């Protein structure tokens, strides 16, 4: 089935494109697959119809939005990928794994399709704290903590969520949580092209958030943060990623560290990988670094490609549920080698997807003896000696 291009080309304002190639030039997957967004835009403009099915490389896009960030003409190339994926979703022609993830979200509120009632299992050992947070959400609280799907269900990420909740409690924040009522934020859903499901999630979640009435919201994941902040239209709610919140607490002296991430006076060399949804898409570069610099025992070093030039880990835009057309050359492999080159012992991240993809890459590349991938939150927890639990050895 061929897509008539004219309407979409106009809706997405593709006529502004001058074919400079800055999008494809900076596209992290264009170098390893046949995805060429500049060329797709051109075809949308000069061909009357497009055989979208023949472009399986559309599923290679990680929605890192480097193309959107750098386009000199405000064309937003990645939005074309999303719209074309939407055509495929509409007619059910999607990779099976994408369909499964979308179905899981529709039925259980999470992409793994795990049972909704198990969404609280992340808080194992902290059940009382979570209970208090749920009660606070019911009664109205200042700050709402949105845990997110991966931190709720993935055993590797659950400690990150626990560390966050523990920190909130230690600092004495009036924090609420939604427990099993929380559903997928829909950030990846929209990027996989399932606009209808995204809108449903945004409506339901939005209603839930408004019911709590918190003025501030904080997320574990930059992906949830991005959609709440930029796509939900939550008027009057200050949406933050946890790194922003913590950087502020540290600056005001409300969060201090009693321990260290290293032995005695020693330092651990730490490098930081900027998540696309935090950095490139929301220009949050300094807060994660300021947290790391405040943690005792951390010596922060930078990779050559950092901040606006950070390399995507290939975990966004639905890529957690679809392999893409080139399995061999993973960007995460390149990234962990870049991290290892700095001499770092710890590769710090601030995103569940980055943590999973980079940790996997460290194992595959045999770097696990020298390089450990950790969320910033885990380092915070480790340096808050007295309160940390067995999680830190995860």
């Amino acid at each position, binding site marked *: 089935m061929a897509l008539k291009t004219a309407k979409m080309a106009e809706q997405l304002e593709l006529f502004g494109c*001058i074919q*400079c*190639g800055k999008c*494809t*030039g900076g596209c992290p997957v264009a*170098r390893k697959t046949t995805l*060429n967004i500049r*060329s797709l835009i051109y075809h949308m403009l000069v061909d009357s119809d497009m055989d979208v099915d023949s472009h399986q490389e559309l599923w290679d896009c990680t929605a890192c939005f480097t193309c959107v960030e*750098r386009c000199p003409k405000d064309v937003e190339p990645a939005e074309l990928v999303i719209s074309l994926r939407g055509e495929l979703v509409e007619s059910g022609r999607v990779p099976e794994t994408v369909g499964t993830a979308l179905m899981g979200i529709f039925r259980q509120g999470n992409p793994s399709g795990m049972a909704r009632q198990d969404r609280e299992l992340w808080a194992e050992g902290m059940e009382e704290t979570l209970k208090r947070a749920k009660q606070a959400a019911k009664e109205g609280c200042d700050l709402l903590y949105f845990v997110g799907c991966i931190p709720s269900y993935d055993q590797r990420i659950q400690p990150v969520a626990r560390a966050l909740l523990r920190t909130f409690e230690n600092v004495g924040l009036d924090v609420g949580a939604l427990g099993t009522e929380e559903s997928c934020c829909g950030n990846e859903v929209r990027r996989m092209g399932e606009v209808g499901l995204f809108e449903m999630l945004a409506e339901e979640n939005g209603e839930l958030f408004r019911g709590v009435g918190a003025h501030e919201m904080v997320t574990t994941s930059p992906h949830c943060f991005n959609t709440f902040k930029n796509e939900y239209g939550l008027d009057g709610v200050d949406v933050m990623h946890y790194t922003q919140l913590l950087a502020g607490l540290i600056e005001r002296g409300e969060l201090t560290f009693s321990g260290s991430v290293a032995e005695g006076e020693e330092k651990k060399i730490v490098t930081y990988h900027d998540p696309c949804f935090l950095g490139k898409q929301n220009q949050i570069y300094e807060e994660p670094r300021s947290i790391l610099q405040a943690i005792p025992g951390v010596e922060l070093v930078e990779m050559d490609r950092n*901040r606006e030039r950070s390399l995507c880990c290939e975990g966004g835009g639905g890529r957690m549920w679809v392999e893409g057309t080139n399995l061999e050359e993973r960007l995460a492999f390149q990234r962990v080698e870049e991290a290892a080159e700095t001499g770092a012992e710890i590769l710090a991240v601030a995103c569940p997807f980055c943590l999973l993809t980079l940790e996997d890459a460290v194992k595959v590349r045999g770097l696990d003896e020298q390089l450990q991938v950790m969320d910033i939150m885990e380092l915070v927890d480790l340096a808050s000696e007295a309160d940390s639990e067995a999680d830190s050895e995860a």
Partner: protein
Amino acid sequence: MERQKPAALIVGAGIAGIQAALDIANAGFPVYLVEREPSVGGRMAQLDKTFPTLDCSSCILTPKMVDVGQHPNIELMTYSEVESVEKDGDIFHVRVRKKPRYVDIDVCKGCGDCAEACRMKGRITSDFDEGIANRSAIYVPFPQAVPLKYTIDPEACLYLTRGVCGRTFKCKDACPADAIDFEQEAEFVDVDVRTIIVATGFDLIDPKTKPEYAYGVYPEVMTGLEFERLSDASGPTKGEIRIPERDRRGDIVMSDRKPEDVVLIKCVGSRDPHTGVPYCSRVCCMYTAKHAHLVRDKVPDANITVFYMDVRAFGKGYEEFYDRVRHERVTYRRGEPSEIYRRGDKLVVLAEDTTLGEPVEVEADLVILATAIVPRKSVADVAELLGMERSPDGFFQEADANLRPVDTNVENIFVAGCCQSPKDIPDTVSEAKAAASSALRVLVRAKEAVPA
């Protein structure tokens, strides 16, 4: 200077202000030429060569600079700024503030013994050399400066910043003319003029606005204007093209290595509403071609790649120059680079070659960014001072884009050169002459109205 005659004020003594001043002065009318910097010359003085003729820029400019310095009808006020302007009928009452140079310019011989002796010698960034060379706290911006008089930089001088410079003033001790005067204060001069020409020039966009090119991160990434200073025979390397590097203090210095792979990137910041520069800067296509030529001339074996979105070679002799440069083994690749990063000893420029339709990595050990022309930082202040309107791009607004290109919304105030919009030297000189002609019309009428 015949002070009883109606006079003109010209703000800015780059090539536009210089040309307009000479035309009016040569017609017999007095001109007050006000320049903020210690010397006249402006941007053109910084350039190595002009395009497409490859004239030595300072060689063709210097005689005009000398002329304005010596002309009986021109009162040159360098290191000065217009403080206030009051319009009273047909007369503008203008107050000019002469900033203290801390050097008596009637006595200074320009010998330079003071700069040699200065404790800060070689430690102050030279703005004229775009930061790729250093000077003393007491300085002339460049050897051909007019006037060739020294100035003490109040932000760099130890005595003026800290109140103490060792046991004795090195510059004062060294000066054979006893010209140094730390007691000097700003002076105000009031003049009445009938017409004003604004020729305040341009700035370049901060290349850090495009963080993907890592200017300021990698010393090998430089701006086109920095390259002009590097390539200039009177510049810090005496015109040799060398790869910049960082010294142990982290300052950028010139290494003794010549580049093997040079990449030039056009449209850096321009044609980009994101950066607030939606317009084309007009001169970059040609100066980039010129830079490619200069690299070929000085480094015959270098691989030279120009990345471009479009080539706009619209002026007389321009397309021919572009043809010539390509034949000099300069590879033009279509595609706006997306990122620069380091791999080993080399930088890698990442782009899509849109003609190939595929992403490419091009190695470089020198990258030259053609950064956008933007209005002077002071443009808003000058506009307010004179009641002038600005166009949405921030430059001064001409009265009519088609038919009154050098008139402004204020009667008898005219514009010339890049303060109105980006333009090349020939167009700037044309506008200066047009503005001078318009100003002369005002002056001649005023003269005729005054009974002899």
